[in-house]
């Protein structure tokens, strides 16, 4: 690690940003949209005021939680695409716990238990995919995807069936919870210190577990070379299951926050696609714990900034996904080209 490597890193980032800006401009021109105005809307819509920034943080929290979870599975060499369903099941479990607890005098306790239930829900769902992989040999991508479809069906069924609002079921979701059950937040700032603390803690704990404990070592051993890990006396399937449990728990916590801190009820699109987005976050962060929250913040800015595109420029908000995706592709491509040329130079 020297100045040369650092400079190469900066050059890589600059090159990928350049590619992304060029590509996005091209897409905008094809759509007949003014590129400069669009970029301005994205920046102002995310960092322009405190209320915008607090919204960014509300996106950042679940995104960071899910990304931390994915670091465990990626280290173990697993493509946990089921993270989306794990977020949803965390939300479902939290909703269930809050409905059972109700607005009692001990509302704070109910909320805390509901968050734990969310983690358990996500972890259990991840366990399903883990067992399908280790016991039945179904690749985790297909097991996870199938379970994503199932959890989406379950969420819809709950909203239109057993948990429908009194009167009429609707796409707007279940009944809003009593205010005492919400995650406490500072109203003037529209920010929940407790949730923010949870996300920061998740990053620190993940970093610690992955770098300084046996678990981290085992995960890297299995992810690096499954056969060699067996020779060292490790049980790859047990390690993989542990990775899935960690990932599912953190994804479930993200879903729990969506329910208790953002929407205060269960809605059909409760996961907001943050599971899939977290996969992109971790890819762009090159599986680095400390880079993941930074990338997550950048992605959260794009998501928040794009909300106003339909209103101000009558453009679809899916532009954020186009930028995020091209960012990851460009970064991966630039990185692999530069490592190749460095290797060939010696």
């Amino acid at each position, binding site marked *: 690690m020297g100045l040369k490597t650092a400079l190469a890193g900066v050059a890589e980032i600059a090159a990928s940003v350049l590619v992304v800006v060029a590509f996005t401009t091209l897409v905008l021109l094809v759509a007949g949209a003014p590129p400069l105005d669009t970029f301005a809307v994205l920046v102002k819509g995310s960092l322009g005021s405190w209320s915008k920034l607090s919204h960014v943080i509300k996106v950042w929290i679940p995104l960071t939680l899910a990304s931390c979870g994915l670091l465990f599975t990626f280290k173990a060499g697993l493509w946990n695409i089921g993270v989306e369903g794990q977020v949803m099941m965390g939300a479902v479990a939290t909703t269930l716990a809050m409905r059972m607890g109700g607005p009692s005098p001990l509302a704070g306790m109910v909320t805390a238990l509901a968050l734990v239930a969310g983690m358990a829900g996500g972890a259990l769902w991840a366990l399903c995919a883990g067992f399908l992989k280790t016991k039945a040999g*179904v690749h985790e991508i297909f097991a996870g995807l199938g379970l994503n479809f199932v959890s989406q069906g379950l969420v819809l069924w709950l909203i239109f069936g057993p948990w429908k609002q009194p009167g009429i079921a609707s796409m707007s979701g279940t009944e809003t919870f009593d205010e005492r059950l919400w995650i406490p937040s500072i109203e003037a700032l529209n920010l929940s210190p407790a949730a923010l603390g949870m996300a920061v803690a998740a990053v620190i704990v993940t970093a610690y577990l992955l770098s300084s404990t046996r678990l981290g070592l085992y995960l890297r051993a299995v992810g690096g070379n499954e056969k060699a890990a067996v020779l060292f006396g490790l049980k790859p399937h047990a390690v993989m299951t542990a990775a899935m449990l960690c990932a599912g728990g953190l994804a479930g916590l993200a879903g729990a926050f969506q329910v208790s801190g953002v929407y205060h009820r269960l809605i059909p699109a409760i996961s907001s696609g943050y599971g899939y987005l977290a996969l992109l976050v971790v890819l762009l962060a090159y599986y680095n714990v400390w880079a993941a929250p930074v990338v997550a913040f950048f992605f959260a800015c794009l998501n928040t900034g794009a909300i106003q595109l339909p209103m101000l420029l009558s453009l679809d908000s899916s532009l954020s996904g186009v930028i995020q995706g091209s960012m990851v*592709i460009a970064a991966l491509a630039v990185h692999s080209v530069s490592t190749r040329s460095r290797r060939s130079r010696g």
Partner: protein
Amino acid sequence: MMMDGFDMLLVASAVIAGATPLVMATLGETLTERAGVVNLSLDGTIVLSAMAAFVVASLSGSLLAGFAVSAAVGACVAALVALFSVRLGMSQVAVGFVLTLMTRDLAYFLGSQYARTEGPISGSAPVPVLSGMPVLGQVLFNHSVPVYLSMIMVAFAWWYLYRTSWGLRLRCVGENMEAAYARGIDPDLVRVVYTVAGGALVGLSGAAFSLCTKPGWGQPQGCEGSGWIALALVIFGAWHPVRAALGAYLFAFLQVMSIHFQSWFPDVPAQVFQVAPFPLMIFLLAVSTLVHSEEAKMLAERHPLLRILTRGLAQAPPLSLGKARSRD
């Protein structure tokens, strides 16, 4: 044949028609994976090519132009996969997954102004003489042109893979790149060619959705999710075009039946039937993997009936699937 408004012939005909896009996508991905490349971008590619086909066909008024553009879009996305994974040696799964999300968002971004507009539909075109046949006429020969095309493609893919020297070369690269190289075949070139060709078929499947089976364009698009099903079907079909196509027909059958089940069991919520085919698909994947295990083989030794079953379901992926060739 009638039972509670349930007509066997109508169901069979609906299955053949409904499976068309899935058959095309599954065949395309089978070709690609036979060359050793996993193109995971299917789901987004189908949405993007469905949008492109719909927009081009409604602006130009030509269905043919719509289908041509969709094939070009699919080929372009696949070319990106080939460039990044075969040429640059990047992870095929990572590239494919990012592209699947990005192409879907790109489709919704570029296509938003055309959502829910009127567009052309590839109408019914019964085959003369053949459509007059009893039973078979209605089931097989009373469809639109893309449906016939998909049926011809299945036969063609089988013939190409197993009866031509080009097909032999393709399978050889998928099984053992070094051996293929030693025989004077350029493995990278073969991989790029079949990734792009497979991508074109996947693109056509998008057009088959938006111009034929699920006509129209909107958000969310009805074909979202089918790319993932096609990917699972390739495994279920054990990388054999005919078996993969049969899987597509099976899936279409489950979807058609879910509509009927809904009317037969009104107490069970509709969402259950809508998502039921997906876990069923996983279950079938699990079964087709399990029969390959040692225990299953030992059991099969003793029971002749089981032996036939395991042989029918056993699968073995192309050996170099997902791997990049080292150039050192």
